[in-house]
């Protein structure tokens, strides 16, 4: 039956090509949609992964007055007491606070991020030791918390003309540069131009035990929404809690739709694809009504006709699905190459006059995902099988003589 079905496809090339093109299109759209959706989801989740957190909490206030050392833009303070309350919540595994400030010198601000070196696993510099996906200490070492030492973003250091061993003014103090950090093209929440011990920055700011970014790691079974609601209640007015689910909508509406609407998109493609392919299959059946009548007349059962048409459509589906999936991935790759997504402004602590660019660009890379490929192939071929069986049943429903009498 398989070789018989293949003969039909290979000898009715125009009709088969139309059907194959239809399945190719379905597979292409499924593959592209899934790849793009996954790429955007992964890109928007990356800043959280980079910092090792499941949630990031900030407080927005009206911008404060000018000062030599001040919190950036509209970032408000989150107190140590509030952090303790958050630590005590059920479902919260670990909490780390960071403090990002603008330290002015000669009228020029430097973005300084204060981090607790004992809690490096959940902070803007989480993976600096691993050297992958974020920040690699290209030269030197991490700062000593008991000294006025700093690790600089390498791009900033190059721009400022300083290196390891040089002194750099941050606000009213001088710090020795002990390390240079290379940020590996990822978006970093609370990233800065200079990284200093947290307590030192708190002293520079002069507001006591204050933070402006809180990174939270949750328990695996935690109810994220409940934890978020409880954090909102603790922080109060101006509280912003970001998670991997809420980040896409903060990046852009399109990103949110792509990240969260993949299921709807897939369903829509399948419905439209099914209607299109059934129409094509019925048209093919209509063209072949006499032939099907002949097969019935020489002794083919209804089930044989169904099997033949099902096999034909499955073969066409297979031939269309494989290149369709590959092309879909290629299209998703092309779109991602030209699409530019960045972390929302709430995470951008750099002033407009900053001498270097903040690490905000999200990495869009539709990685080859075996599960996604399998889903696209299986759905397309399933559509082909269902269409073929449906068309076969329709074709076999007429008595043979009625089919043979068709002009």
């Amino acid at each position: 039956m398989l070789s018989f079905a293949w003969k039909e496809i290979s000898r009715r090339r125009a009709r088969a090509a139309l059907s194959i093109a239809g399945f190719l299109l379905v597979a292409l759209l499924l593959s592209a949609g899934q790849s793009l959706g996954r790429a955007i989801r992964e890109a928007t989740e990356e800043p959280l992964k980079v910092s090792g957190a499941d949630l990031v909490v900030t407080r927005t206030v009206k911008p404060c007055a000018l000062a030599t050392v001040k919190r950036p833009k509209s970032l408000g303070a989150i107190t140590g007491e509030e952090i303790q309350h958050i630590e005590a919540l059920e479902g919260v595994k670990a909490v780390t606070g960071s403090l990002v400030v603008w330290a002015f010198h000669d009228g020029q601000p430097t973005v300084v991020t204060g981090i607790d070196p004992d809690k490096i696993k959940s902070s803007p510099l989480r993976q600096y030791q691993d050297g992958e996906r974020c920040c690699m200490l290209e030269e030197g070492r991490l700062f000593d918390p008991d000294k006025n030492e700093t690790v600089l973003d390498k791009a900033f250091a190059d721009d400022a003309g300083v290196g390891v061993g040089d002194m750099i003014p941050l606000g009213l103090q001088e710090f020795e540069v002990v390390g240079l950090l290379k940020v590996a093209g990822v978006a970093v929440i609370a990233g800065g131009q200079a990284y200093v011990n947290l307590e030192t920055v708190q002293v520079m700011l002069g507001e006591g035990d204050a933070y402006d970014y809180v990174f939270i790691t949750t328990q695996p079974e935690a109810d994220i929404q409940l934890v978020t609601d409880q954090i909102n209640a603790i922080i109060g007015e101006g509280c912003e809690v970001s998670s991997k689910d809420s980040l896409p909508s903060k990046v852009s509406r399109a990103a949110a739709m792509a990240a969260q609407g993949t299921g709807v998109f897939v369903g829509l493609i399948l419905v439209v694809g099914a209607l299109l392919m059934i129409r094509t299959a019925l048209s093919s059946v209509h063209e072949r009504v006499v032939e099907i009548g002949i097969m019935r007349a020489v002794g083919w059962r209804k089930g044989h006709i169904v099997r033949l048409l099902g096999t034909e459509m499955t073969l066409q589906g297979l031939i269309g699905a494989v290149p369709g999936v590959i092309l879909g991935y290629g299209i998703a790759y092309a779109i991602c190459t030209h699409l530019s997504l960045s972390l929302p402004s709430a995470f951008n602590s750099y002033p407009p006059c900053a001498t270097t660019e903040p690490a905000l660009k999200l990495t869009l890379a539709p990685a080859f995902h075996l599960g996604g490929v399998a889903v696209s192939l299986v759905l397309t071929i399933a559509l082909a099988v269902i269409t073929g069986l449906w068309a076969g049943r329709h074709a076999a429903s007429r008595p043979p003589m009625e089919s043979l009498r068709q002009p």
Partner: protein
Amino acid sequence: MTTPAIHLHDVQRFYPRADETVHALDGVTLTIPTALTVAITGPSGSGKSTLLSLAAGLDPATGGRIEVFGQDITAMNEDQRADFRRENIGFVFQNYHLLPTLTVWENVMLPLVPIVADELELKARALQWVERVGLEKRINHLPGELSGGEQQRVGLARALIGEPTLILADEPTGNLDSGNADSILDLLFDLTSGGHRSVVLSTHDLSVADRCEHHVRLEAGKVVSSTLEEV
């Protein structure tokens, strides 16, 4: 008494049309014994083709009972009739009814494709019958590349590949010139002789009918005369 090849009892076939009902067969009772050649004659529209298609189970009867080799085919569902047809009946069409995208040998093997899994065996049997109808040099040609006579030979080989015991031929020479018609009839009778096969053919051509052992004449859907009554 041996089981007859075909037994029709008060068989009717009506076709509803817009303003009237067409009585293609109107109460036909007829018994055709085995191992005979029978010609169904009559003018155009007398019900000859309808009788053959009902006997083959290609068309459902509106009323009455049809038995083929003792099996009541009117009581069978479509799949059962298809199985019975494949195993017992070979049908030759006036218009040949070959599949245009299949070659000669592929058309010949068509009845056996769903039931014979071994493609080599299938091809061997098809080639055997292609040779018997004299088309071994045209084996890979498509129907569109054959003459009418050649196409009917393919139709004949296809009807016989399953080694049926009943051959029904609906105006097998209707679309052929006299030369081709004679050679087709020669082939038909030659291939079906000596095997207790029954051949029933419909024709409006008396010279074709004269080559059969018996005649049954239909007019307006009724049997008006039959030499079978003498059997």
